[in-house]
């Protein structure tokens, strides 16, 4: 995206902000800045129960005592927290009249990903007259889920209609004291997703935010809470493979997962937010706290992520293995190109007996990007017979990028078995020649090799997601050759 395009987007964003400010009808915005008063107003606007406000305020007060962390292997200019508007939902994106007004580069990417015209319009904020198919699909889905007692709604809805569940589980995995961004999120989160799978129910379809139209624009402080009750199973898909241009620069989301006895959650993410231009201008700061608690015996939480977007990604989807025999898994592909920076990994905290964890991380760096894996495996004293296997591979494309691995081990039980394997490789010139010699262009050859390298992780993704992720990698790597 050229700088004139950037300023165009900024212009549009500013315009919208002004409207929100001066028009009486659009009272749905709060002025910039953060203080207790703003938080009270936000809570009132959302018609929240008392406990919610209290929790937000406690989080805010705690946040005030914290310092922005800088231990990650990323660099960025400081964020001015008083310069953000903390309530502008339902925020309208600048509505464009037709796709002609959309950045052609972005449309090109959509075309390559095979995204339908209607969907392109939805993603870029073009007004659509026809009712989406997906709306009716979503309704059908909802009826079916209701029948089974599955709750799947926006976080705001959950606060209104399922207070007891929210009260019981909110902050129980990621307390507001956890870290700077989690505290900030707890104080000001605007919306997000909530899912509850009742005892013994196997959710018959993949739950995806995509189908939950009403929370399409949950903004920069998103909150997700998923509870799988005893013996239940759910697979949850977050995000969408199309790049999203978003004027919010800082995204500080929190995701909490809870599995009770014999329950299982499979959480898959494909993140392809705007990474900034080739020189590193613009782009999203994606600072997310994702954590799951395997509370029950024999329960399992499995994170799969494909991270190709954002200027800076800073996230560690983690598992707290409390229940005996519980299992945590982390499968990750993180690709950085141009000036992108990613510091990502996981924490596997073994507390229960016979707990097992697997970490498969595939980092790919191209351009002038920096890609770090950071992972902690902690085995508590009482975690008898715990097992971990970690494999962290880095693939370098070119010689101006960097790959780093920071594995941390804390083993407090002598019976633990922990295995760590790490490799760093470059795409071989001989591999590219071999594929060229078969009639395959260098760009396509790199796509094939990189996708092959990520195979183990893609195998964990739901089918449609895997197909899109494959295309996405190739698109994200474009221009990284030669």
């Amino acid at each position: 995206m050229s700088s004139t395009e950037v300023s165009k987007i900024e212009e549009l964003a500013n315009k919208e902000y002004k409207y929100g400010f001066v028009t009486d009808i659009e009272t749905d915005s709060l002025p910039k800045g953060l203080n207790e008063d703003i938080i009270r107003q936000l809570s009132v606007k959302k018609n929240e129960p008392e406990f919610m406000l209290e929790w937000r305020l406690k989080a805010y007060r705690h946040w005030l005592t914290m310092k922005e962390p800088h231990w990650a292997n990323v660099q960025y200019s400081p964020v001015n927290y008083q310069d953000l508007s903390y309530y502008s939902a339902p925020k309208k994106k600048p509505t464009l009249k037709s796709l002609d007004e959309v950045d052609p580069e972005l449309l090109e990417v959509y075309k390559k990903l095979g995204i339908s015209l209607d969907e392109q319009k939805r993603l870029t904020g073009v007004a659509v007259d026809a009712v989406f198919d997906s709306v009716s699909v979503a309704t059908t889905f909802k009826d079916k889920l209701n029948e089974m007692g599955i709750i799947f709604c926006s976080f705001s809805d959950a606060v209104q209609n399922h207070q007891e569940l929210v009260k019981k589980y909110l902050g129980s995995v990621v307390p507001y004291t956890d870290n700077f961004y989690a505290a900030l999120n707890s104080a000001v989160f605007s919306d997000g997703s909530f899912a509850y799978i009742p005892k013994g129910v196997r959710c018959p379809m993949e739950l995806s935010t995509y189908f939950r139209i009403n929370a399409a624009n949950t903004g920069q402080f998103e909150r997700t809470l998923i509870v799988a009750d005893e013996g239940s199973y759910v697979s949850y898909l977050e995000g969408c493979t199309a790049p999203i241009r978003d004027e919010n620069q800082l995204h500080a989301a929190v995701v909490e997962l809870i599995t009770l006895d014999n329950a299982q959650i499979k959480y898959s993410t494909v993140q392809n937010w705007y990474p900034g231009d080739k020189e590193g201008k613009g782009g999203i700061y994606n600072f997310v706290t994702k954590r799951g608690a395997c509370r029950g015996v024999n329960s399992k939480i499995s994170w799969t992520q494909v991270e190709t977007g954002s200027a800076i990604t800073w996230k560690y989807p983690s598992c707290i293995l409390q229940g005996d025999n519980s299992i945590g898994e982390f499968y990750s592909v993180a690709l950085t190109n141009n000036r992108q920076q990613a510091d990502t990994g996981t924490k596997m905290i073994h507390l229960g007996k016979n707990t097992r964890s697997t970490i498969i991380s595939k980092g790919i760096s191209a351009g002038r990007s920096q890609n770090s894996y950071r992972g902690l495996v902690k085995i508590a004293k009482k975690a008898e017979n715990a097992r971990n296997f970690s494999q962290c591979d880095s693939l370098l494309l070119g010689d101006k990028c960097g790959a780093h691995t920071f594995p941390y081990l804390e083993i407090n039980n002598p019976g633990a078995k922990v295995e760590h394997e790490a490799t760093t490789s470059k795409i071989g010139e001989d591999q590219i020649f071999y594929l060229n010699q078969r009639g395959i262009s260098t760009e396509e050859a790199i796509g094939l090799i990189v996708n092959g390298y990520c195979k183990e992780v893609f195998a964990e993704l739901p089918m449609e997601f895997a197909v899109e992720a494959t295309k996405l990698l190739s698109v994200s790597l474009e221009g990284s050759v030669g």
Partner: protein
Amino acid sequence: MLEIKNLHAGIEGNEILKGIDLKVNAGEVHAIMGPNGSGKSTLAQVLAGREGYVVTEGEVTYNGKNLLDLATEDRAREGVFLAFQYPVEIPGVSNTNLLKTALNEIRKYRGEEELDTMEFLSLIKEKMKLVELDQKFLSRSVNEGFSGGEKKRNEIFQMAVLQPKLAILDETDSGLDIDALKIVANGVNKLRSKDNATILVTHYQRLLNYIVPDFVHVLYNGKIVKSGGKELAFKLEELGYDWVKNGKSEEVVNH
């Protein structure tokens, strides 16, 4: 089909090919023999367009085009196929995936429709039979963990699927057991036609019992020092390379 004139080429400043002349017509099979390090693989790689090799003199015409001007992948799309002396492993990429991508790229280049999955599968089934390759190799990663002989057989399988006009086989026979050698030779023979040509790089006359060449050339120290018919291979087998070295070959022949 292929005409090489006074080709000089090298790598990192070392001249390896020192004036090669070779003409290959459609329908012909040429065998290139020669001692280790004489430049056989270098010639194959230069023709295929490997980066790093620099042509300092001479020209190569392929079906009326200047071959050296074409990008590596375009040479392949124009029908040049190299069966590698050391096939490369590509983890995570299945043989099928590679072949489907390659075949469709080649077809696109030629302005032909891409094959759909059914057409593609029936094509590879047919070609698999030709080289008696087991089904399980289709889903395995390209060459990864293949035995030496399996790699070579896989090269011929790929060749069968891609149906090149000019195939260059770099020591495809080394590492093959007797049965595999027959199978591979049989595959190559079945693919032979009046429209395509084959260059066989080999050390052993044995292969030439199965694939009978029209011409045999001896490459020594970057030059073709002797050319002849298939009987030349027998003579080499019998007398070794000494008699072609240092221009002594005439003497020997006159014995």
